[in-house]
């Protein structure tokens, strides 16, 4: 036996010893030990997670986000973002994923993606878009996170450190091994989605996002327009979670300026806006406008004079 083999064998024995006594003394814990090993396997950052498992994990996390804010109940709107989103995703290396896009019903300004091709934007963000290229910019940023498996890798790291400790506690799993894994994914996901990714992942998603939008025929500057909006509103409560989990929007603009320069200029034709978005923004005037008759002219007139 070669020395380094003996060493790795020793290491393996040492590793198993740390759990084995508990397993031996308390028979029921053997089951928990199995579960912990399974969870640890997910968390093993050296292991490449297969497409089916990625989709399952992403679905669990999407279900969690939908538990916090359900889909806006409007099939036309949802269909619209799915058409735009799918077109964008087709211009990446992971076009074949089962992509799903949704507007979720909250006033807060944010967007999320989970592994396997799930992308959400909040209604609060959607309402702030000036045109369709801004929607395309945000969707492309989220698509880039999925393409690069940013959340999947961060989740693996998170689970590697938390899963085994949890498996020993008595609250573990009514749903067997699968249920336990889902619990672990959700738990790690909550940590991840409230703490945020590494800043480097966000900057990378910005750089890739503007290119994905440009490849798809949109102005690559839609995302920049959104970052301008965010920079002007960053103190507002509805942006609190987004600001906590992302780098400062002004920093993101600086980075994009350095990376883009004028490299993505002059792609013609490039689309800022489309009738599909304008139709949502500018349909026949709704009745509530009448209410604003006394206020609107005075309020609007002032800034115009300046």
């Amino acid at each position, binding site marked *: 036996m070669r020395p380094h083999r003996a060493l790795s064998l020793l290491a393996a024995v040492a590793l198993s010893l740390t759990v084995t006594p508990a397993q031996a003394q308390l028979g029921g814990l053997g089951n928990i030990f199995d579960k912990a090993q399974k969870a640890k396997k997910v968390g093993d950052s050296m292991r490449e997670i297969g497409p089916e498992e990625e989709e399952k994990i992403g679905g669990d996390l999407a279900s969690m986000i939908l538990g916090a804010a359900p889909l806006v109940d409007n099939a036309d709107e949802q269909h619209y973002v799915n058409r735009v989103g799918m077109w964008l995703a087709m211009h990446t290396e992971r076009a074949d994923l089962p992509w799903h896009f949704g507007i979720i019903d909250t006033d807060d300004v944010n967007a999320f993606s989970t592994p396997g091709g799930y992308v959400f934007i909040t209604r609060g963000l959607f309402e*702030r878009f000036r045109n369709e290229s801004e929607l395309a910019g945000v969707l492309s940023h989220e698509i880039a996170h999925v393409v690069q498996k940013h959340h999947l890798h961060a989740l693996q790291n998170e689970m590697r450190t938390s899963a085994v400790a949890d498996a020993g506690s008595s609250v573990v799993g009514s749903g067997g091994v699968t249920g336990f894994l889902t619990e672990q994914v959700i738990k790690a996901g909550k940590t991840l989605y409230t703490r945020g990714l590494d800043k480097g992942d966000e900057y990378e998603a910005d750089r*890739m996002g503007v290119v994905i939008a440009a490849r798809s025929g949109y102005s690559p500057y839609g995302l920049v327009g959104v970052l301008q909006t965010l920079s002007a509103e960053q103190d507002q409560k509805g942006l609190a979670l987004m600001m906590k989990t992302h780098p400062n929007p002004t920093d993101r603009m600086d980075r994009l300026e350095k990376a883009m320069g004028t490299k993505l200029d002059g792609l013609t034709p490039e689309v800022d806006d489309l009738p599909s978005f304008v139709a*949502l923004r500018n349909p026949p005037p709704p009745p509530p406008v009448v209410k604003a008759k006394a206020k609107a002219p005075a309020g609007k007139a002032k800034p115009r004079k300046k």
Partner: protein
Amino acid sequence: MRIAGALIGALALCIAAAPAAAEEGAVIRAGELKAMPFIDAVTSAKVAANQAVTIVSRKGGWVEVQANGQTGWLRMLNVRLQGGSAPAAGQANVHAASLLRTNSSGKTVTTGIKGLGEEDLQNAVPNPAELTKLTSLAVPAAEASSNAAASGLVEHPVDYLDQKKKKK
């Protein structure tokens, strides 16, 4: 008559102003105000850093601004917005907002003010029914393609931008 006139005026103003409410901003780096939204367009004036500007319109990577009584184009990445100047919910996109709200089946009153903060995520209970609904909304690639073609979206071959520092 006057009231009717004022009402029509107010309506027209709302409709016209809604998509492009005036945004106030400032120049980030000293630069040139261009007559057209192109790099090689004629320079109509110089602008200093921190010069206040009013954004009149947007086109691609450019914003049309009024600065010091002059109108011209600046690179979008050279303009930051003043706090509170960005389009608020329902200003950029008025009708989408009301449309979305009206259609929130029976939950219109409460969902309109719901936030999605840290606690909401921490306390979230997975919602498999909504996940099933989301899955049913998927659009096939063929439909996305034909929709894009009908919209006049033209694909461009563009490489990803260089990364200065590579991770891993």
